[in-house]
């Protein structure tokens, strides 16, 4: 039976065609259709590495011998460790770990070789930044293995008596900051950044496009108000929202997830404020770039994706290939992750944090300039 409400192939096809036509004209959506899968494949496929290698390692050597050189060389050729330099003493080692410049410090005590030759099974100390258990686990396991292989290879001839039986020396691992390797301790502080990043950018991303779509932008533009006043004026309420969110997360971290905060809460808020500002300016910049609310949402998504994957939140930063680290190095979340983990787990001091503070400031400044440049003062 044919009724006017029955399915009509022609009507249906006309709908299909219309959708295709509109989709083709909507460049950004079209770009996302192609861009997102490619971006995800590249990021997840290549950038992420759950067996991170080439981790920055410093050596404190109070004993220079053929054997210690050979051990350091073996570490390097294991690919887990990248020897980035030598440090004079333990204090320098601690501060390199605290600032996150190195992941490991290998400490070879004085008289190590002599004691080795006497068969006293001396200990070699590796101090590890275990904030992120995933980053260090495999490397530390490999370090233990090294002791055995180096011994087997180097200790031939008269020394071969050392090669058999027990390991000729001991690798003592000292896990700093998160000694029990509790993943939660690493993830929860990291989540602060992820949550702030998402909400801040999303909310401000819509701020100007919304005015434009509702036609109220014309009214604002007709008034004697400067772009800087409009933009910063729009940011203030979101700073307050950001601070409320931080408080909620901190309370949950403390009482729900029982993650202790080693550093000061004041510093946490300070770091979060910087990070909130950075993301709000990103949002407002997107807002002045985007033509409508949908575009602003899409841009937010584009921004969010690399932030999650390349910032060291989800996967160890040191384990990523160089190009991915380079991308990560321009993302605010990368620096905030280091700051928040530094404060939460390492009780970092200001001078330890500074290398991660100024990039946030510079980032905010640059993005603000971009936002102001692209802010349309007219309706052109």
């Amino acid at each position, binding site marked *: 039976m044919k009724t006017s409400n029955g399915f009509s192939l022609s009507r249906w096809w006309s709908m299909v065609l219309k959708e295709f036509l509109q989709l083709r004209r909507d460049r950004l959506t079209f770009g996302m259709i192609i861009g997102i899968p490619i971006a995800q494949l590249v990021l997840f496929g290549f950038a992420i590495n759950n067996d991170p290698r080439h981790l920055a390692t410093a050596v404190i050597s109070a004993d220079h011998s053929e054997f210690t050189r050979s051990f350091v060389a073996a570490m390097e050729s294991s690919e887990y460790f990248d020897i980035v330099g030598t440090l004079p003493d333990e204090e320098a080692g601690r501060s390199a770990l605290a600032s996150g410049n190195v992941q490991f410090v290998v400490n070879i005590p004085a008289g190590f070789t002599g004691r080795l030759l006497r068969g006293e099974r001396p200990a070699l100390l590796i101090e590890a930044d275990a904030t992120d258990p995933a980053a260090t686990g495999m490397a530390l396991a490999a370090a233990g293995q090294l002791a055995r292989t180096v011994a087997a290879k180097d200790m031939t001839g008269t020394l071969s008596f050392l090669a058999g039986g027990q390991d000729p020396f001991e690798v003592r691992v000292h896990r700093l900051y998160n000694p029990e390797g509790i993943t939660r301790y690493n993830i929860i502080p990291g989540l602060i950044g992820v949550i702030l990043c998402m909400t801040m950018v999303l909310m401000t991303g819509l701020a100007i496009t919304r005015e434009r779509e*509702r*036609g*109220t*932008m*014309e*009214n604002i*533009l*007709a*008034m*004697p*108000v400067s772009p800087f006043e409009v933009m910063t004026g729009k940011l203030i309420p979101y700073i307050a929202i950001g601070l409320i969110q931080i408080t909620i997360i901190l309370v949950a971290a403390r009482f729900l997830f029982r993650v202790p905060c080693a550093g000061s809460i004041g510093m946490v808020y300070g770091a979060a404020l910087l990070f909130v500002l950075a993301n709000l300016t990103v949002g407002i910049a997107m807002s002045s770039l985007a033509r409508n609310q949908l575009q602003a949402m899409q841009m937010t998504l584009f921004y969010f994706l690399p932030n999650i994957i390349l910032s060291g939140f989800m996967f160890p930063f040191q384990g990523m290939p160089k190009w991915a680290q380079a991308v990560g190095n321009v993302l605010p979340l990368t620096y905030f992750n280091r700051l928040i983990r530094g404060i939460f787990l390492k009780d970092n001091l200001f001078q330890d944090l500074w290398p991660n503070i100024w990039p946030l400031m510079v980032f905010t400044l640059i993005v603000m300039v971009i936002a102001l440049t692209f802010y349309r003062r*007219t*309706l*052109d």
Partner: protein
Amino acid sequence: MSDSYAIDVRSLNKRFGDKHVVKNVSLQVRRGEIFGFLGPNGSGKTTTIRMMCGLLTPDAGSGTCLGYDILRDSVQIKRRVGYMTQRFSFWEDLTIRENLDFVARMYGLGDRRKRVNGALEDLGLAARANQLAGTLSGGWKQRLALAACLLHDPELLLLDEPTAGVDPAARRDFWEELHLLSARGIAVLVSTHYMDEAERCHKLAYVFDGNLLAQGAAPEVVASQGLSTWQVYGENLVGLSEALKNASGVDQTVLFGTRLHVSGKDGAALERTLAQTAGSAAFRIEKTETGLEDVFIYLMKQASGKTGGAP
């Protein structure tokens, strides 16, 4: 002297992509004058107004608003001009008072409370000050918008189709208010579609397809085209209109419901033609004043190179 002009713009041009939307438009509006800006939809009225108050940058042309250069001094212009957008552009999720407060703060008005309360009283909205602007009807939204753009005592009002979609009584009130403002020396540029509103303006300009086709007081604009017009009553005016279309002396026929306006430059030829074609008892013919609408339709058709047909 250009200083006596509230608006004095010369050869404004604006393109959007390859669409030439405003072509060499020059306008002069005196202080205290109500200046009507007419033209069909899409003819470039909104675009022209936006260029005058710094919302769009002209591609070519120059001019002043209240003595300030429209290209360089847009901030000064914005301080002194009240612009009412074609589409309601206040915040529907703010109350009436909050909207007015926002505007007052934007212009840094002293005595904000007093001014806003005064505006609410004048509007007759004092009782509804805390109602969301979005819940107002069209007529009230328009009054709110007018009150808001008058809050900072502008010397020039740019009103873009302020009465579109507003009922006749509210329109009448609105025009009375405009005349009061103009009597206080405020210049008003108002774009509109309504012919009765055009008649109430001191001066007029007619744009079509980006071209300014006529400018002046209503009688001047009418006289400038030198049209003679006859009015025909009777049955089958549509048929008559068709028959007259290409007849000698007939430049245009316009059907207004029960009357047909027939106009032509050559009055004598037109009269002869009418006597022949419509001279039967079925039609009643009388000479009439050429109206603004006749002239606008004539101008539009001249510009688009067409003749005849209904408005």
